């Protein structure tokens, strides 16, 4: 297919969806079920406030503060709540720790369940068929798609988020970061390393 054809198809789908969603919004607004200003506020929050910077701050603090790390691994919801980074942390949040022996990966094979209040909305790949189908039976293949290769002896633990429990990976602290502040450490923590499809940046 030529680029022109792809562009035309893309624009045509865009217009179809713009019209479809606008129709839904009009009907729901005229029926009195939704308020446009509230919709605007939600979108703004998802675009500008909610994001993986929250999770990164949690990981950095866990790296620097052993008592916080213990609390986080015991029950992540109150531990993260105690940092005051966001208004309310969802219930049933569970932090799972990477070690030299075990690498954790999070998936939702059935849909797209994700700890979005601490990581932001999930990326397209997380919600797509390749990731949802292959993480549970070929996690090393999935990691290879992300350019990551782990030692053969490393155990891979995949957590399928089939209920309302939500998982965030606590990755291992990179070498050469002794004495770093929480903020400096947080800059090494990528979104993907908190899902398990990557590792933190190097120091």
């Amino acid at each position, binding site marked *: 297919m030529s680029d022109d054809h792809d562009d035309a198809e893309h624009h045509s789908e865009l217009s179809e969806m713009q019209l479809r969603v606008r129709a839904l919004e009009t009907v729901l607004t005229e029926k009195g079920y939704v308020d446009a200003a509230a919709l605007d506020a*939600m979108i703004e929050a998802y675009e500008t406030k909610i994001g993986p910077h929250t999770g990164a701050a949690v990981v950095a603090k866990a790296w620097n503060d052993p008592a916080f790390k213990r609390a986080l691994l015991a029950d992540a919801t109150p531990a993260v709540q105690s940092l005051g980074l966001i208004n309310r942390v969802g219930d049933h949040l569970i932090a799972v720790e990477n070690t030299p022996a075990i690498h954790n990966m999070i998936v939702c094979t059935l849909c797209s369940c994700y700890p979005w209040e601490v990581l932001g909305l999930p990326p397209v790949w997380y919600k797509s068929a390749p990731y949802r189908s292959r993480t549970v039976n070929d996690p090393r293949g999935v990691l290879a798609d992300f350019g990551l290769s782990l030692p053969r002896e490393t155990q891979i633990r995949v957590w399928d988020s089939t209920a309302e429990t939500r998982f965030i990976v606590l990755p291992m602290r990179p070498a050469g970061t002794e004495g770093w502040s929480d903020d400096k450490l947080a800059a090494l923590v990528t979104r993907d390393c908190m899902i398990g499809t990557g590792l933190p940046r190097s120091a």
Partner: protein
Amino acid sequence: MDGIHDMGGMHGFGKVAPEKNEPVFDAPWEGRCLALNRAMGAIGAWSIDEGRAGIEALPPDVYLASSYYKKWALRLQNLIVAHGLAGADEVAAGHALRSGNVLKRKLQVADVPRTLTRGSYGRAPQAEARFKVGEAVRAKNIHPPTHTRLPRYARGHVGVIEAIRGCHVFPDSIAIGAGENPQWLYTVVFDGRELWGETTDPTLKVSIEAFEPYLEAAKGL
């Protein structure tokens, strides 16, 4: 339901293709679509479970060919019509032709911060937990035609209870309007070879979050 959404372990979908610096929304309509869905959920028009069932009910060819937020738009359309909140004629017309039902409330700007948190699904137990940490259990060979959260790849297989997560709203009940019916929730870990065969990488373990009705004791183990 044994639908196309239950894709754990399926072959043929190809490589994972992450996009660098992916925007939160690919186009403005996606944001509007998310917000509309969340707003209807927040005022209790339907449970999150019924919402998931609404996506699972999309025909397989539509499910696979539609982007994520297109599936949300189709689900929204189907649920508002199914619940009598608007008519199919009104959706097609793109505006209301009749006044709306009286819903208990409408999401206002001041309510928005509350919606920026995942819901709370823990409930008081109806009975003692049946299984203990460390116990071997078998995921039942069930095939409900309605919403369930027991993936096909786990059914019939033996795993170990790793943790007890409390009692939660039971999706299988609430999605079909049969009430919250809270059930004990367990993290059950399976050896990869148990799920996928003897040639599977021995370093693999997969866990699911399984409600008690999905499990039975694994006798003789």
